[in-house]
């Protein structure tokens, strides 16, 4: 009888009862754009012709009057003003449940930088990414009544089916959670190109990039409240008024060259990162180490293929401990003229230290459950294809 009661109670979720969980997955990582500037600088240095005198192996610094757009060969960080502006949209892949696959809301990116010299540049960066967690609306999850109801296996809790399907054991939930997420990043980067030696008369450049990152988000289910959505942390604490994806970080990225041939190029970046301040469910603030490998192939002068696997760390307010995200993005870029480019990127990422993916369980914190239930969110993975078209300084977009 108890089971009957609880099974029936699963039907309660038909309203706004189930506050939607925040999306956690961020397959791009924070430092995608930070790497971009460093790559440009390293590529420019490596593309520079060897000096006439083999002893002058550090003289890669261009004249301060060198222009970044067009003109002579750049030899380091772009000097003077540079910019990039693009618009993008994304299409989700994987099992995103019954929300239904569709193009996600579009976003825009904007970058403006000023290079004081080929080895010193300041960049402000704003970009948006969209994603939808894989599997968020799929599968059966347990329903837990408020603390005080004895946990009797097989009886209490019962379960609900997030796919909306009602089965012999679970009641389906419909409508589904719309956790379409648009993350927004604001970055301030201070890029410093350093020559650390030479090899075969060519400079060996590295780039140090002290960075400040501020991110925030919009989650569809917040009903106009930004990224504030109630949730239960993995350690069982309920939160109702936390900006789930708003965080500020300090980082120090180090990018080193890895590969250079006439058509191939590669770098590796490590970036120790700290929260400016813990928030929400955070319980620690130990340095996290981003690791980014960037490999590029240029079969034609205006066409570029690239892949960028990452071991990234997300430490968002809904995380008790940082997420260890394994992510990649792979794509193709095509330039049109000097200023216009298009790019198609397949990217995917999810935490390796949080399972299962998606909604883990539903906790009812007070009766009636139809207005007092929160999801416990496990790891959130996202995979999507992003199409991007924009204009900008060629030296920055690396054509």
């Amino acid at each position, binding site marked *: *009888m*108890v089971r*009957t*009661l*609880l099974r*029936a*109670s699963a*039907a*309660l979720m*038909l309203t706004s009862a189930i506050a939607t969980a925040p999306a956690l997955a961020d397959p791009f990582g924070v430092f995608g754009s930070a790497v971009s500037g460093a790559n440009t600088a390293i590529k420019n240095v490596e593309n520079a012709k060897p000096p006439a005198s083999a002893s002058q192996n550090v003289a890669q610094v261009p004249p301060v009057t060198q222009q970044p757009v067009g003109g002579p060969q750049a030899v380091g960080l772009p000097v003077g003003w540079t910019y990039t502006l693009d618009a993008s949209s994304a299409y989700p892949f994987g099992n995103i449940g019954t929300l239904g696959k569709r193009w996600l809301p579009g976003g825009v990116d904007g970058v403006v930088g000023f290079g004081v010299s080929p080895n010193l540049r300041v960049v402000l960066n704003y970009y948006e990414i969209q994603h939808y967690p894989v599997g968020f609306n799929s599968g059966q999850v347990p329903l837990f*009544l*408020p*603390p*005080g*109801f*004895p946990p*009797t296996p097989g009886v*209490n809790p019962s379960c609900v089916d997030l796919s909306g399907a009602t089965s012999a054991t679970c009641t389906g939930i419909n409508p589904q959670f719309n956790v379409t997420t648009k993350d927004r990043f604001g970055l301030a980067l201070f890029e410093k190109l350093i020559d650390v030696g030479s090899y075969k008369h060519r400079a060996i450049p590295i780039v140090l990039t002290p960075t400040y990152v501020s991110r925030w988000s919009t989650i569809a289910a917040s009903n106009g409240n930004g990224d504030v959505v*109630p949730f239960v942390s993995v350690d069982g*604490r*309920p*939160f*109702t008024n936390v900006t789930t994806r708003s965080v500020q970080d300090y980082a120090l990225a180090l990018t080193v060259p890895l590969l250079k041939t006439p058509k191939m190029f590669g770098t590796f970046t490590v970036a120790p990162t700290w929260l400016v301040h813990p928030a929400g469910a955070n319980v620690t603030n130990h340095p996290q180490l981003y690791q980014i490998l960037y490999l590029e192939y240029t079969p034609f002068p205006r066409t570029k293929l690239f892949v960028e696997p990452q071991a990234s760390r997300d430490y968002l307010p809904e995380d008790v401990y940082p997420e260890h995200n394994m992510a990649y993005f792979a794509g193709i870029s095509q330039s049109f003229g000097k200023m216009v480019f298009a790019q198609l990127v397949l990217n995917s990422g999810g935490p390796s230290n949080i399972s299962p993916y998606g909604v883990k369980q539903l906790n*009812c*914190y*007070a*009766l*009636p*459950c*139809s*207005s*007092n239930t*929160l999801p416990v969110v496990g790891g959130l993975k996202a995979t999507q294809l992003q199409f991007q078209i924009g204009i900008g300084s060629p030296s920055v977009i690396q054509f």
Partner: protein
Amino acid sequence: MIEFLKRPLAALALVALAACSNGNGTGVTPAPAPPAPGVPSNGGIVQQNFVGVGDSLTAGFQSSGLLGDPTATSPASALPGGAVPVTQENGFWALMYLKYNGLALDPAKYNLDTAVGSPKGPLPLIKAPGLGSQLVLNATTLLAPTHSGCDGFNDQAFSPSAWSLTRLGPGAPIADVAVPGITTHEVLSMVSPLTGPPNGPNCGYVSLPGDVTSGPLQALVQGESLMFYPMLGQFQQTLGAGKTTELGAAASMHPKLATVWLGGNDILKYIESHGQSPATDSPTQYASDLQQIITTLQKGGAQVVVADLPDILGHPHSGEPPIATFIAQTSLAADLEQLGVPAALAVPTASYVQTTYTKGPGGFVLINGVLSIVSQLQQNPAAPVVLDPAGPGSGDGQVYLDQTFAAQAIALNDAYNQTTDAVATATGAALAPVTSTFVGLSSTGVPLAPGVTLTTRYGGGIFSFDGVHPSDTGYALVANLFIQAADTKYSLTIPPVTAAEVGGIASADPYNPFVIKTLDPAYPLPFNQ
């Protein structure tokens, strides 16, 4: 007599569970404890030598209410000056506290002039008009509630910030952390009200389509939800909101001696929900939970006295009657007659109830059901009585108990008592033998003088007007069981409540029918044995 008994129906519909178990939709518990007026930052918590863990029985609940304010009056009360009897100061734990600390009882003043009657004392004293809806003797309707169970005073208790407005001395250190309505598992796990204040008509909850956790299930956990903050709110200042459990509060005081009396609400919620209560422990879970409660207190240095439960539905095979609020099918005809129903009508009515509702002589009708029968017969003696207010079976559990289900409830009650005894042995805790004591009381009563014997039947003087919670006299008897168990097991020297003191308590007991008859000679109770 039937005319006379038209009056108390509304009042007695509120008995027992409704008050014992009464709730806020505060939703999710926030992390920080909100400030409560009058409560210091440390919650007023200090070390206590003697602590009470339990439910309404340990809190001193009586007659569907919890009250500690001696100034309470009500126009509904037929007592001199419209006085409303306090309940908390007369509970067994309060009496044992006085004895443990060598303080004198003052039953003539309901102990209001003792330590337990002080707002700075060990009880979480509740202001007037009290939490719940206390039933008092009424000049015209026999019994009447002092106030609504869903009025503004009660609603304050559901609020994490306004609960202290229901307390006398909300910042004073308390030692009785019992939460009326709480189940055994909730002692370990409940950290906030499980539901909000009633939002429906007649102090009920609105049933939402498709959500069976609304309506009846909310009503089932209303009691402990109403009482949680007034009893435990101040501990959130030190233990944290969302982390304060009754056991945690008790353990934080590091007592040397603790009483643990639980399980009653598990059984009563099982009965009220007709077996569907998800808040009720299975016997196995009960054993695990009770053992955890006892051992946690023991690890903190406490000697623990645990008690089993009365046989709530009695034992029909041995002839033991149920506690007062349950009327055995076998005595229904006689009880109807005593309430004024002519024998020619009482007998066939009882037979009809057995055939239609209780399904056999092993069934029961609750006191509110009995009074409903009387009312219906008054209005139309020829019409069949209706005990299912919302369709077939809807009254089973709350108005009557069918024979088959009653047997299941009795079996669960037995299992709980066996479990309590076994856990007491396993943990080395002292056992207060409430079960066997009430078996004896049900046959002998409490003889006060020749021809003056209190009984366990409804109105008999051992139970209060809700028929579930003891009267002042009943609590005094229970106090002695705990005292004797503690003295025997731990070689303590807590003096018992003496026979003279029991007599003094009985003589001032507002639930003693012989006292009541001096105020209202027409008082029709108690039911005959």
